[in-house]
């Protein structure tokens, strides 16, 4: 009786937790390979084709027009010199943060639930940064001269201005893009090596190149672990610095509403907020569309990320309130006017929408464990949070720029070509993800297996408990 009970308890845990539900190594490898190699369905091609058209028109054609005709095609004007391009830049950088957060911070803190989806999150980092890069280059008036922002020796004796937050920004984003790509690549090596051994044709060549001759010897594993450890620790400060620096683009300016000391952490929390939302939406899609993924991605993961989202939402609410309050008490009449304009001006709906999406919706849904474990529901919340965070950046940039110290110049902003370009970046992000799902193993198999090996049921008298052994 008690044995049976213990058995059913074990069964229950096994069902719930991936780490306690081990499969043979070969079987698991096969599952991941199958998920990746599964021939694309017509639905896949339909979406892929549609997105390609959107990218071709929204991103490339519109951008070519923007370059040939000038930034006047966008909705920017005096005094709103920065518009949706910068909103999108901050937004995509924000999205990219969750990847690093999930894989690096959770890895450092040994959060075991992270294991199956670190790869998916890291891909989000890299692909998000690509979109951020696109967005910031679209913003430039003369993008063909963007290389002037890079330090390189030249006969004019001219260098980028190291006083400018934009220069820091550029350096930070470049560093982040490089390091996050490396960090994506390192854990990928054992998996592509696995894929190399299980594929033929061009795929084999492709994985052969990517795997760098990885054979899985102890020495190789040791090097890889070392490398990943170093990167996991090193990328955390990079990640924090990137979004702090992005916030300095605004905080270092003399504009009312921007010149705020809290912007650094506020932006980081905001970035995590949107990034977590995006990550969970991506997970839900992967789980719903790809083969065998219901085994790897389970309710427990949604539950765990849901908890994180709730905490981050609370933190965001705190920082938002803090920012608002501190600025209000600063007593500067222009700032006060601006804060009033945020809520009561023509874009007030967006301000309230931001609060609803970022605070009300997550708080209302994520407190309940059952709801939290429901993939579609949490994913919807994640998307709503992203809408809210996009609103937040929109309010910080074009809406706040409406108000300055020269009331004679105040104006509103009506986006123009930013809309196709913004949709283009979103489509490109999804397109890259879709392509990646067919090209690289989305689940880090070795990491899951490593975790499963460390987990075991131990019996203490009548009780069965889960024990996790230290690997590293």
């Amino acid at each position, binding site marked *: 009786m008690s044995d049976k009970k213990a058995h059913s308890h074990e069964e229950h845990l096994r069902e719930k937790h991936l780490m306690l539900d081990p499969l043979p190594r070969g079987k698991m490898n096969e599952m991941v390979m199958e998920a990746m190699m599964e021939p694309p369905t017509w639905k896949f091609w339909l979406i892929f084709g549609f997105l390609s058209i959107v990218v071709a028109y929204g991103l490339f054609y519109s951008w070519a027009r923007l370059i040939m005709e*000038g*930034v*006047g095609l966008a909705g920017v004007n005096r005094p709103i010199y920065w518009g949706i391009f910068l909103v999108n830049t901050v937004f995509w950088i924000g999205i990219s943060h969750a990847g690093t957060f999930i894989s690096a911070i959770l890895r450092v803190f040994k959060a075991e639930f992270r294991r199956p989806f670190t790869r998916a999150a890291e891909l989000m980092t890299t692909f998000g940064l690509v979109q951020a890069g696109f967005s910031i280059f679209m913003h430039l008036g003369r993008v063909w001269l963007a290389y002037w922002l890079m330090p390189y020796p030249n006969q004019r004796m001219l260098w980028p*201005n190291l006083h400018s937050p*934009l220069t820091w920004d550029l350096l930070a984003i470049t560093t982040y893009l490089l390091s996050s790509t490396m960090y994506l690549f390192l854990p990928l090596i054992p998996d592509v090596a696995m894929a190399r051994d299980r594929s033929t044709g061009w795929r084999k060549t492709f994985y052969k190149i990517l795997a760098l001759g990885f054979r899985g010897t102890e020495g190789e594993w040791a090097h890889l672990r070392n490398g990943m450890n170093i990167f996991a620790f090193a990328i955390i400060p990079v990640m924090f610095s990137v979004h702090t620096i992005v916030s300095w683009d605004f905080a270092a300016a003399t504009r009312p509403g921007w010149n705020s000391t809290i912007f650094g952490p506020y932006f980081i929390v905001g970035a995590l907020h949107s990034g977590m939302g995006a990550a969970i939406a991506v997970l839900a899609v992967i789980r719903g569309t790809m083969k065998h993924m219901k085994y790897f991605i389970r309710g427990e993961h949604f539950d765990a990320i849901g908890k994180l989202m709730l905490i981050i939402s609370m933190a965001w609410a705190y920082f938002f309130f803090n920012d608002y309050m501190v600025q209000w008490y600063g007593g500067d009449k222009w700032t006060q006017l601006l804060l009033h304009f945020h809520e009561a001006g023509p874009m007030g709906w967006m301000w309230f929408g931001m609060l609803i999406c970022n605070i009300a919706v997550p708080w209302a849904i994520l407190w309940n464990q059952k709801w939290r474990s429901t993939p579609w529901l949490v994913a919807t919340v994640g998307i709503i949070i992203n809408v809210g965070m996009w609103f937040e950046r929109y309010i910080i940039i074009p809406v706040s720029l409406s108000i*300055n110290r020269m009331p004679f*110049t105040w104006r509103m902003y009506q986006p123009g070509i930013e809309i196709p370009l913004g949709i283009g970046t979103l489509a490109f992000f999804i397109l890259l993800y879709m392509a990646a799902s067919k090209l690289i193993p989305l689940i880090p198999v070795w990491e899951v297996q490593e975790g499963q090996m460390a987990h075991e049921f131990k019996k203490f008298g009548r009780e069965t408990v889960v024990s996790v052994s230290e690997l590293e």
Partner: protein
Amino acid sequence: MIRPEEIKMSSEETGKWGMVIDQDICTGCQACVAACAMENNVTFVGEVDSGYGRSMHWIRIERFWEGEYPEVKMTPNQPMLCQQCGHATCEPVCPAFATVHSQSEQLNLQVYNRCVGTRYCANNCPYQVRSFNWRDYERPEPLPNQFNPDVTVRRRGVMEKCTFCIQRIHKAQDKAKSEGREVVDGEFTTACAQACPASAITFGRIDNPESLVSQLGHRSHGVKHLEELGTLPNITYYKGG
């Protein structure tokens, strides 16, 4: 440690070229705006873009209203142009050094050919006096015949702003140098000051206490706009009345 004498106050004369604008006699007639546009090849943008806040005026005349009908008053016309700040907020934020401080003339320069169009300077200008070339605005032939050859014609994607007619400064300096003398006060002036029918704008050396602009600048009730930001503007306004 900060020594008090190191803290510059805007009341001190820090600049080289400066301006005094008497709002009490400015009639808002727009002669300065037209003169500036003609002198500096400033483009016109057409009805739609100008209504959307994209007009390229380097100098604009602001006016507000006080009170309600019938006790309504138009506030004194306020010509707003680049204040050529001694400690400008536009300068440090440009990543390409396209807007830099001229050490020799103490002006805020906008180097058009270095500008990549981040528009950060314009965001950070508290006076909102920078204008951006949103498009290549068409000036059909033969209008370009009027272009001032001393001033670069700007194309799309470049920021621009009032230069205190630096081409005139250079010309006057060059002339004085070729004649082996210093530039005399009043020998030349900016296009806006030269046109102003009310002579509301006075331009000159504020580091020369004898110059007309210094004399006018020492009157008691002048204000510098937003000097609380520490920008050390070089234009003094008199509201009068």
